[in-house]
């Protein structure tokens, strides 16, 4: 394993890390998501060596770096607020780390030009950081960190202070840069697009703990905790009881005697949580014949339009299901409050979360 964080605990008073475990392969890209104050930045800064671990170990390339000074770790960091040195111009900022070990001016100049060119800031080298736009500042900060060819590049919400179009541009650019430098990356973000566009692995943090980490698709499609399910946008998370098996599918009874079928294998626990992503629910005015194993009816309780999508909340007994439609589909189906409607979803999209496990790890 390239980076291995084992049982790491840090207490900074307001922020803390509690028994964090994290694994990362060489040249892979991990994104860490989680609510504000969950300890994401503290985790990055502890990996970088700015905070001492109270407990636990950090291994990089098999070497214990837990007590190594930041300057000896070979880990660079990029912050949301850029922190470009105001007493240096763009060239000097980018060259700063390089100058530590490279004294040949011609080599420094050539490497700065090469990196600046890659990040398309070669025309800004004489400028003072204060005169740059947000996107230009962030590209300079990335250039400054990547030019030293770090073993790991840490990025703490690097795109959150730039506008949407710059964000999209920077995402493409960073992908290119990371590939070019073959760098291992850990990226903290609140933006799920970053997860889908950049990450191979994702970790979800809450209250100083990593609740789940793994392959991006797996975490998003099969959250192992109810918080993760809610945070990654599953929305429909309900308590249920395993009722046994029926034709290789797991039969689950929810509140109001509602029966759902899941392709997931249940664990030992009889009490579970089931999670269904809103985009996997199909709405229709009538029942239809298909391979879909879950088809239920309910009453439309709420219709909320958010930008280009419409959220439909349907009440079935005491349970509220949330699904999404386009405004056009909503109009075609004649959806309005109080209307009876069919909800269909595949058994493969009904994910089982072990309730005991999730509650225990949340405490």
């Amino acid at each position: 394993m390239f980076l291995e964080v084992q049982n790491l605990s840090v207490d900074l008073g307001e922020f803390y890390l509690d028994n964090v475990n994290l694994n990362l392969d060489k040249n892979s890209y991990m994104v860490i998501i989680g609510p504000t104050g969950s300890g994401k930045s503290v985790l990055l800064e502890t990996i970088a060596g700015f905070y001492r671990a109270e407990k636990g170990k950090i291994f990089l390339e098999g070497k214990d770096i837990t007590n190594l000074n930041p300057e000896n770790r070979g880990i660079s960091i990029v912050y949301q607020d850029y922190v470009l040195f105001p007493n240096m111009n763009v060239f000097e900022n980018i060259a700063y780390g390089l100058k530590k070990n490279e004294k040949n001016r011609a080599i420094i100049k050539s490497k700065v030009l090469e990196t600046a060119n890659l990040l398309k800031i070669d025309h800004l080298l004489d400028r003072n950081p204060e005169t740059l736009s947000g996107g230009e500042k962030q590209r300079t900060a990335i250039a400054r960190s990547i030019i030293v060819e770090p073993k790991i590049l840490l990025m703490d919400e690097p795109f959150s202070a730039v506008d949407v179009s710059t964000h999209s541009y920077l995402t493409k650019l960073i992908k290119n840069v990371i590939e070019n430098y073959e760098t291992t990356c850990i990226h903290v973000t609140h933006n799920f697009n970053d997860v889908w566009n950049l990450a191979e692995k994702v970790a979800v943090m809450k209250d100083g703990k990593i609740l789940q980490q793994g392959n991006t698709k797996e975490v998003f499609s099969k959250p192992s905790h109810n918080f993760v399910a809610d945070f990654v946008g599953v929305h429909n998370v309900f308590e249920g009881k395993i009722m046994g098996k029926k034709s290789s599918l797991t039969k689950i009874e929810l509140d109001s005697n509602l029966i759902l079928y899941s392709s997931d294998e249940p664990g030992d626990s009889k009490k579970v949580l089931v999670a269904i992503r809103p985009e996997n629910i199909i709405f229709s005015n009538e029942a239809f014949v298909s391979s879909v194993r879950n088809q239920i009816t309910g009453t439309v309780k709420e219709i909320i339009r958010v930008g280009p999508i419409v959220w439909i909340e349907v009440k079935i007994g005491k349970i509220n299901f949330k699904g999404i439609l386009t405004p056009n589909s909503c109009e075609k189906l004649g959806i309005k409050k109080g209307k009876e409607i069919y909800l269909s979803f595949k058994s493969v999209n009904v994910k089982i979360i072990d309730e005991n496990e999730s509650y225990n790890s949340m405490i």
Partner: protein
Amino acid sequence: MKSKLEIIFISISFIFTALLFIIIGNLFFIPSPQGFIQSLFSEEMITALKLTLSTSTVAAVSVIIIAVPTAYSLSRYSFPLKNVVKSILDLPMAFPEIVLGIALLMLFGNNLLGNFLQSLGIDIVFTTTGIIIAQFFVAFPYAVRILYSTFNYINPRYEFVSRSLGYGEFETFKNITLPLAKSGIFASSVVTLARCIGTFAAVLLLGGGTYLKTETLPIAIYFNLSLGNIDMAITASIVLVLISFVAIFVLERFANENINKG
């Protein structure tokens, strides 16, 4: 169109600045030109001027050298009794300077520490060294206070980034923190120098105010006023005003130039 509040506030600032200007400017019209010239080139004045400038410069430089690490450690590091240290450093700003003077005299006078230092050939009381020590301790808390705010204002992430790029703690302090703290260091230098030049009671008690030996400009003003030598006292005051003005002007201009360059 200015608002009423704006007009009132600007008027207040103008009226009281004008009053202060009149009070200080008034000094320049009291002595006769002949008395002023005579006093200015008197042996007492030249000695006091040289002594004030030399002791204040040494004291101010020492204060900044010691205050920078003190303020930085208070701003960045956690250590036992940190709040007690901060309170003790603030204390001399709250009580009269003469109290600090008496405390210094008692410490370095005819007692254990004073006698020990004397046995090593180090005379503090009623000497130029005593003047520098008094100026140092009067100005030190002010410098620490300004520098502490300065370091607090600098985002520690600048230092984090520098460390992550391969620079050690001291190199980061030298390359990043100190240049970013430049304006605060200049501001504290101005205040420190002004406090050192203007220190009276503590310097009088520890330095002794001996004629032509440990008589600084503020002490010269006090002695000559007591003796009824008004021209000499006012000339010393004018010299002090001019020194303070030039020091503040030069340092602030230097600071602004450096900030603009930065």
